[in-house]
């Protein structure tokens, strides 16, 4: 059951605070960032399970605002650095670390790089941020990739002019490699150890160069990457194999803003879009018979999948790469009750899903079937 909470600000980003490794704990705290307000805010909310009695099962209490702080510019990127710190990317080009003080339940600016992204004579919005404590990587409309370290004021690494168009999203591939997507429909792989100004690898869809807006990597199988872009198609890529996507699936009728694999149950994928829908994709984990037992006659099976069995060592081919073919089942369900304005952001952790919309509402579902 979703409950909508109207929060008087358009929500551009929503993220769960990571829970400690205890397996059964559901996330309770999430942060949101607003955009397009005269005064934007970053807010922290709680959906703790107090007052259980009297509530029908499934219907949780409203999220309660714990604290909030002013944010200069639209919040275009938001990530939890650790249990206390949150990094945000701003439309003014600033990257800020906020600290949530648990005892006083307040939030304050802990560190800031004010003009991280900029043009020669102007500000450039910082479009996305990803972090793996203490390293923070940001990208922006100025086509720069910046590597920062929390608690160090100087920039650890700056890749100038990494892209001639806007970089919309970034994700880690491995600890020293990142993937970025841009406005001309390319995924670029960067190796941060090589201090070079050009990408190690470029992947793109042939034909129309549709801008890509989001990217996420499969949590276990690190070569599988999902992207979404302006045409609302969900693309699955295998970064080891060539420069073409493995499968394309029609997902939304407008821009896809975020795509997330479920962190612990990666047969599930979530996408949200400008068309106001949030889709939950579920694939059957493996085909009925393990593929290494099917023998070589299956090498040239499906038209979409370009995978060849690599000498039999390879274990089961991920169903994601097969996409919509007959080899794997793919189910899609709408998660929001009715059409809303654009769903800008979503985050899923355990069984809990949170998303924010342009209708100034936050939806929370604490019983996602994963």
């Amino acid at each position, binding site marked *: 059951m979703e409950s909508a909470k109207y929060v008087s600000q358009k929500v551009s980003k929503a993220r769960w605070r990571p829970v400690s490794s205890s397996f059964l704990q559901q996330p309770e705290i999430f942060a949101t960032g607003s955009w397009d307000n005269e005064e934007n805010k970053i807010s922290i909310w709680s959906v703790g399970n107090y007052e259980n009695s009297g509530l029908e099962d499934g219907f949780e209490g409203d999220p309660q605002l714990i604290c909030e702080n002013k944010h200069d510019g*639209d919040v275009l990127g938001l990530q939890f650095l650790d249990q206390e710190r949150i990094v945000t990317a701003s439309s003014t080009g600033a990257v800020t670390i906020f600290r949530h003080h648990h005892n006083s339940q307040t939030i304050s600016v802990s560190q800031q790089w004010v003009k991280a992204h900029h*043009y020669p004579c*102007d500000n450039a*919005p910082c479009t996305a941020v990803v972090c793996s404590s203490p390293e923070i990587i940001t990208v922006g409309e100025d086509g720069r990739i910046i590597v920062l370290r929390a608690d160090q004021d100087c920039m650890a690494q700056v890749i100038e*002019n990494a892209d*001639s168009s806007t970089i919309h999203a970034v994700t880690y591939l491995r600890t020293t490699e990142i993937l970025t997507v841009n406005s001309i429909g390319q995924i670029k792989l960067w190796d941060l150890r090589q201090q070079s100004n050009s990408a190690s690898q470029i992947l*793109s869809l042939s034909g129309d160069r549709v801008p890509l807006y989001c990217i996420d990597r499969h949590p276990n199988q690190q070569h599988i990457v999902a992207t979404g872009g302006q045409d609302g198609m969900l693309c699955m890529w295998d970064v080891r194999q060539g420069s073409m996507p493995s499968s394309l699936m029609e997902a939304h009728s407008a821009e896809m803003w975020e795509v997330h694999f479920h962190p612990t149950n990666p047969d599930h994928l979530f996408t949200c879009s400008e068309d106001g829908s949030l889709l939950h994709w579920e694939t059957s984990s493996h085909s009925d018979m393990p593929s290494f037992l099917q023998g070589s006659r299956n090498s040239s099976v499906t038209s979409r999948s370009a995978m060849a069995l690599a000498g039999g060592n390879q274990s089961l081919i991920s169903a994601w790469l097969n996409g919509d073919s007959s080899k794997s089942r793919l189910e899609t369900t709408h998660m929001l009750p009715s059409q809303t304005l654009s769903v800008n952001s979503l985050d899923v952790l355990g069984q809990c899903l949170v998303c924010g919309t342009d209708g100034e509402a936050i939806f929370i579902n604490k019983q996602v079937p994963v």
Partner: protein
Amino acid sequence: MEEVDVEPVVTNISGIRPGKRMGFAWGPGDILVYETQNKASGPTGSGCAFIHVVRKDEDIYSPILRKLFNESHHIFVGLQTIKDDLPSKSKKPQFVSISRNYRSVIRACMEELQQAAGELLTKYIHHVSILLAIELIWNLCEVLFIDAAPAGSLLLHLLDWVRLHKSDVDEKAKGVLQSDSPAEHRDYWDVVLSYVLQGRLEDTRKMLMKQAMLQPAAKSMYKLMDSLLSKMPFYNPGGTQTLTEFDVKWRNWHEEVDRYLKDNSFASNQHLEVICKILLGDEDVLLEHKELLSTWYYFLITRLLYCHPTVKPTELHYYAQSSMMMFLDSGVPEPLDSILLAAFEFDIHQVIKDCSIALNNWWFVAHLTDLLDHCKLLQSHNLHFGSNLREFLLLEYASGLFTHHSLWQCAVDYFDHCPEFGRVYLELQIERVPLDTERKALKVLRICEERQMSEQVRSICKIMAMRAVRNNRLGSALSWSIRAKDAAFATLISERFLQDYCAKGTFSDLDLIDNLGSTMLLSDRLTFLGKYREFHKLYGEKCFSDAAKLLLSLMTAKIAPQSFWMTLLTDALPLLEQKEVIFSAEQTYELMYCLEDWTFLFHSFNTNQTQLALARNLASAIVKEGTMQT
């Protein structure tokens, strides 16, 4: 020209010195005002450096009220999607439920304001009272117009309406019941009387029982009252009893009560006598309890309950007018009173008009009118300016929303559902949304594209592309011109690239040019750029014959800009001077032709070297081709 209905409100601009003249300019939802000396010419002396923005509607900037706008937008969109083909009878419950949704949104907002009021008391009290009034009016409109209950049920709905808006009785009752001896509490009889006035006879009986226990001597009297209260008939709309049967029953009961009053059964207890008189609908007694009733419409409903429970909708206005006159001895009704009166008179247009004047925000009238229009209750008469009332109000409301930095997105849906002028309004407004980030521009573009507003798409893409070019983000600029299918701009960008090449000798942004793909076809110049880069790549990979073919096709296809012809010819030179013959005889002829064609343009161009190279190549090619035949 219509006359002014009410005197205009005067607003003092604090920043302007008294006695000074003001200049002004209209904005979409506000006025810009400044101090002026209003002199045609001559020295002006020091003026005021400020411009003041005067906003009529500050409600949209209140964070709590914003929720009202968003939630009602959701309900509005849902309402528009109800199919028109169903008969209106089956749609009535849907409309009633939508009306209830709207009202619950208002109530939620009100509750939140009341909770917040602790800190910002004065600021929110005004809003709370407005919302209370709005909900009251809306509820009444729902009962009278949307639900349109017939005689019998009408009174029951009106009773609910009054009970919902007079909740202080329950608070008082709670206080009484929680005391040690409820029957001796000073508010006890107030509570009892309030219950009676609201027709809550079960509750009355329970309360009276407490009193009865304290006065065993008057036991029989209390028992009598209890039985009278229990016997009062209430109409049951779902039951088998017809209205006439109910009426008969009610009259019988009424006569019975009258009889008991007349033979002084309650004479010894003043309170019970008052109750008895109320049950008979004695207006004087009712008026004696004005503070308990507190409003004339409460008085009206009580009066109807105990005098005329089978009141028909058409008869309401007689009773309403007389009730108001009886209750308000000062005679001057407040705006809320005249609105409610207009509602009781079933004058929908008057209700809407009065509400429009009384409130500073179009939210209420726009949504209510829209709902009533869906219920087919508004006669469509065209206003002077061409659209009907519903559309006019929606346009006004949406235009007001559009001035808000954030709520403009909601306004788009409202414009969509104004068939006559909505599109034009949207076209004008959407171009003026400030585009600070690409993300916002993308959202605005999506709105325009979905509605086939190609003009606006082109203009927005051009703005973003120009901005990108200025910041030297040529890849971004190209992606914007691709989106707008703007060939002219793509040409501009290609020119920039080519200029850069001429200046530096290498291409910048190779990741873009190398991967143009089919977008190359957007403009000739772009195609040239892509192909020229391809030529360089082929040359770098030493695929000379392919490179030569490509270079030749570039020259003959005439897509190269004039400034580049020299460069192309110069590029041909190293190919001509290779040991191996690359250009065939045919190709060499073409090259010579090109050179001749272009020489007269470049007077200072030294063609000797090229001509020599071409001639030598021709010779070798002829020999080579001749040799191959054997």
